[in-house]
């Protein structure tokens, strides 16, 4: 989770990723951010996020994102 938060903070240091859960809905993360996050996740956790998982539900909060990462690690 720590590494993930670092990735997110690296993109938008002003955002409180611990609590915010409307990252996509409020357009805090745009499509560029999402791609960057995915490539960073790929580097950090060695999981590939498939395109069909790029849905608001998975990216709206750091927690949801971490759940996704764990789920993908599990499937591996």
């Amino acid at each position, binding site marked *: 989770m720590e590494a993930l938060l670092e990735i997110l903070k690296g993109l938008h240091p002003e955002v409180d990723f611990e609590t915010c859960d409307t990252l996509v809905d409020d357009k805090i993360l*745009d499509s560029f951010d999402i791609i960057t996050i995915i490539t960073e996740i790929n580097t950090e956790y060695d999981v590939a996020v498939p395109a069909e998982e*790029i849905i608001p539900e998975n990216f709206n909060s750091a927690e949801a994102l971490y759940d996704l990462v764990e789920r993908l690690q599990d499937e591996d």
Partner: protein
Amino acid sequence: MLFTSYSFILFLTVMFLLYYAVPKKCQWMLLLAGSYCFYAYSGIHFLAFILLTTVSTWYSARRITRIQEQQAAYLKEHKASLDKEQKKRYKASMKKKTKRWMLACILLNIGLLAVLKYTDFVISNINGIFHTGLTFMNFALPMGISFYTFQSMGYLLDVYRAKYPAQENAAKFALFVSFFPQVIQGPISRYNDLSGTLYEPHSLEWRNISYGIQRICWGFFKKLVIADRLLVAVKSLVSTPDEYMGVYVVLVILFYAIELYADFTGGIDITIGIAQVFGVKLAENFERPFFSKNITEYWRRWHITMGTWFKDYIFYPISVCPWMLRLSKKSREVFGKAIGKRVPVYLATAIVWFTTGLWHGASWNFIVWGMLNFLVIVISQELEPLYAKFHNRFHVSGKTWYNAFQILRTFWLMGAIRILDVYRDVPLSFRQVGSIFTTANWNELFNGGVMRLGLTMPDYLVLVLGALVMLAVSLAGRSGSVRDKLAAKPVPVRYLVYYVLILSMLVLGAYGIGYDSSQFIYNQF
């Protein structure tokens, strides 16, 4: 059938009347019949193409769902007896099967689109490079092929990704592909959004009829009074570009921007309005795009369904696909983190804009237009830290005049690159825009030059008023539905507004002999 034609109005009236006369569960069938009649009107032989896409997609999607259901059933049954490795291998092999169907269907349909639309473009380029004399094929394009193909492929990919099961009923699926209000120029609908509202029975609700007709009238107003009128001037300006340089090119940018906006949003208003009269809800395609402060915002507000389609089905898949991730890792190793993290984003963006340009038309004009959009996006991305510093220092963001500056900047920038739509070729377009800065003929605005473009002073007056009305409606729309606000007004006020709207559309519309009747821009798309 053009939206702005007598035959279409007749067709609509008949459809509306029949729709609420037939038993509710047959309404979607009526829509299907009407859609095919509408499509056949453009040429009976074209039906073959839309049928091919419909049938192939319907069938492939069903096969894919079958395999997915098979997989789910198998895994459930053998939950206990299989280990993780085995499950993984089984899923992979099933995935391979569905992938085959998906690829085959895409190849067939995108291939068909590519051949019909781009063969002559390819030939002309080959002729240009290799000095050959290949003859052009002059394939006639089926109406709306770019739209319905993309809409169908979106559906196919959704089913492939197991977002929802395939539609079993071929007729129902055929309606999704061919639904007549949207087949010409979108919006490009998602199956999960459209299917519910499209197939379910609809009882006659006054609000739908009233709001739908209002929206249709508003769309006709924009197209007939503003767009078709401006088209006369734009045509004069671009048909003899040598005569009209410098300040005239500024006029082209301005006129064409408004004309395209009025025409396209007008057409979409008609589309969504028609659907609403049927009780069917279509997605919005525009959200006051000229209020955008930067290019990214612009592309979230202009041709929304196209933007999201390219994002979901091209941008994301490409950016996260294995070879892109590998490329990204490699470039990170070779060029360092800064460049490495830009590679997937920019490469994917470039591909998206190349294909977006290509999708708009089989000519270098559109491709260059796409890449110019890409360039502006990259530049604005790279300039962000600079902007941040600037805003930290000067605290102008949010101020009205700064907002106005951003809006105007975006309007003129987007308008300038759009003129690749209207000039004959890329070099000419660049030359014309360049002449804005090199040709000093601003006095032309005041010496009657604009009176020789086919429009009279009363025409310009109508255009100014029309633009102001559009602006007013947009401004009002920011805080809620305009039609809701109108509905809250007393009856005499409401009806007066309708009356004026309808009469001004009929009187001031640039239709009939004496005006250049224009083909709807996206018709043969």
